[in-house]
């Protein structure tokens, strides 16, 4: 059993009062709060270790370089990549997905190729592919979801043709919290020589990840949704792909030789990290992973599952509530609506009670269209959320229903 009070004490922001109420932070799918350890690591880096990496001969530069490489090593261990050179630091999931769409578009993909995504993707896993398809004249195909939010995998087989080159899908839905059977999907499509990209933004903080066992070709995620700072993210790719795809950006730090006629690039990962990288961000990610590891992701996962299931059960018992997503395999995000109450009104009133949820389309308009809704209310959970937080949400919802019934 985790000592949640002790964990909560690590997060200074949780002591804040919002409109004189204790903060109930349930917007973790947007970004998680940061433990003191992560905050301190960034302050310490800038206070005592700050220097640019890769190029300095001096002590501080080497020390900063060492910190940065350790962060890469820590990420490698966390997702069990084979080599640390398979870990590229990016600005986040969106950046990683744009990176892949751009570089594959300039190398392995060509006119007429087909790309498959799902109906539940975040815009960041839709738009880059859509734009790429327009640019190179490729075709975008969609795996639909059923009413429960489950992917209709029988449709996947129908979508696959000899022109299908890649599938990019989310591990966990940022709206519904549904966990997709990615391992099964990867196995299925690899029989057809299809590349697989997994958006792990809503998975890495809840589910242990083993990219070798998953056998995905690419795996991407953000630091800030797993207790690290903003602006740091990860692109994992199998080494063989990193050897063949071109750099995403060009500049300093990624070349081995430059003259006015030609430029030679460094090997991965440096080849893909042009310019001054987010060193403090990488340090914060390393510290966040160490924080998670110290508690144990399995323990975190089982605690979150308890709070999540408790909330779903309570929500379903409330009158006039529609919960979207209905499987047993869910984590993180939980979407619902209150009958005849606009999600924006509900969110506004919950906010006044100190309860932070997200309302709207959650950057997933196609999924909103699938359900025929303008938006939803989304509560999303992290390690520090307690049963008390869930109760506060349920009571808050009751209060919203009462207030909205005024006159």
């Amino acid at each position, binding site marked *: 059993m985790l000592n949640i009070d002790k964990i909560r004490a690590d997060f200074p922001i949780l002591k804040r009062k919002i409109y004189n109420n204790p903060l109930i932070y349930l917007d973790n799918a947007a970004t998680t709060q940061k433990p003191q350890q992560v905050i301190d690591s960034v302050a310490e880096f800038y206070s005592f270790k700050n220097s640019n990496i890769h190029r300095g001969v001096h002590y501080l530069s080497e020390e900063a370089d060492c910190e940065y490489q350790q962060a890469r090593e820590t990420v490698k261990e966390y997702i069990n990549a084979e080599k640390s050179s398979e870990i590229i630091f990016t600005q986040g999931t969106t950046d990683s997905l744009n990176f892949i769409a751009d570089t594959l578009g300039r190398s392995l993909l060509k006119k007429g190729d087909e790309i498959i995504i799902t109906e539940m993707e975040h815009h960041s896993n839709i738009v880059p592919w859509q734009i790429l398809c327009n640019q190179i004249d490729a075709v975008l195909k969609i795996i639909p979801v059923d009413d429960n939010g489950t992917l209709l995998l029988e449709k996947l087989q129908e979508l696959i043709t000899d022109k299908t080159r890649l599938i990019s899908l989310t591990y966990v839905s940022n709206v519904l919290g549904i966990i997709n059977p990615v391992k099964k999907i990867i196995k299925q499509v690899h029989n057809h020589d299809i590349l697989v990209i997994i958006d792990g933004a809503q998975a890495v903080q809840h589910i242990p990840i083993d990219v070798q066992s998953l056998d995905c070709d690419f795996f991407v995620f953000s630091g800030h949704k797993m207790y690290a700072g903003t602006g740091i993210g990860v692109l994992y790719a199998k080494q063989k792909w990193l050897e063949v795809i071109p750099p995403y950006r060009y500049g300093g730090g990624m070349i081995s030789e430059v003259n006015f006629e030609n430029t030679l690039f460094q090997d991965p990962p440096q080849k893909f990290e042009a310019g001054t990288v987010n060193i403090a961000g990488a340090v914060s990610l390393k510290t966040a992973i160490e924080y998670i590891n110290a508690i144990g992701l399995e323990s975190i996962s089982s605690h979150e599952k308890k709070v999540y299931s408790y909330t779903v059960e309570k929500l379903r018992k409330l009158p006039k509530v529609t919960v979207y997503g209905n499987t047993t395999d869910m984590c993180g995000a939980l979407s619902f609506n209150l009958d005849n109450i*606009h999600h*924006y*009104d509900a969110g*506004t009133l919950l906010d*006044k009670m100190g309860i932070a949820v997200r*309302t*709207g*389309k959650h950057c997933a308009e196609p999924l909103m269209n699938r359900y025929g809704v303008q938006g939803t209310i989304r509560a999303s959970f992290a390690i520090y959320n307690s049963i008390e937080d869930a109760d506060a949400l349920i009571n808050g919802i009751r209060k919203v229903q009462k207030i909205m019934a*005024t*006159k």
Partner: protein
Amino acid sequence: MNINSIQDQIIEEFSELNDWLDKYEYLITLGKSHNIYDEDLKTDKHLIAGCQSNVWVKTEINNNNVILKADSDALITRGIISLLLRVLNNQTADDITHADLYFLDKIGLKSNLSPSRANGLAAIVKQIQSYAAEIGA
């Protein structure tokens, strides 16, 4: 009544509401009683697409005054719209263009006007004022 007298009147009304609950209940009541009979209003032509709630606004000119019609699918936004219309509807284009909407701050709703608030209110005020400025010019 001129714009500032109406604003002062609203501030006076809100000063009697003690806490956020009373205030929002009042806004909800206003939202519920804000009925616009204009089938043309809630069409794409008048939609100010916000991320969270849809807001529709329609502007017309009658003699020298600007006639405003506006609505939202969210009730709280609707309540605020009804206040906004109470202040700005049927005023002259010139008065609307130069109006300082201080009442929103005084009644504690200023945060609703920040451009990052996705309720479309900042956009609705901007649209009304730029329309008025156009006519006034």
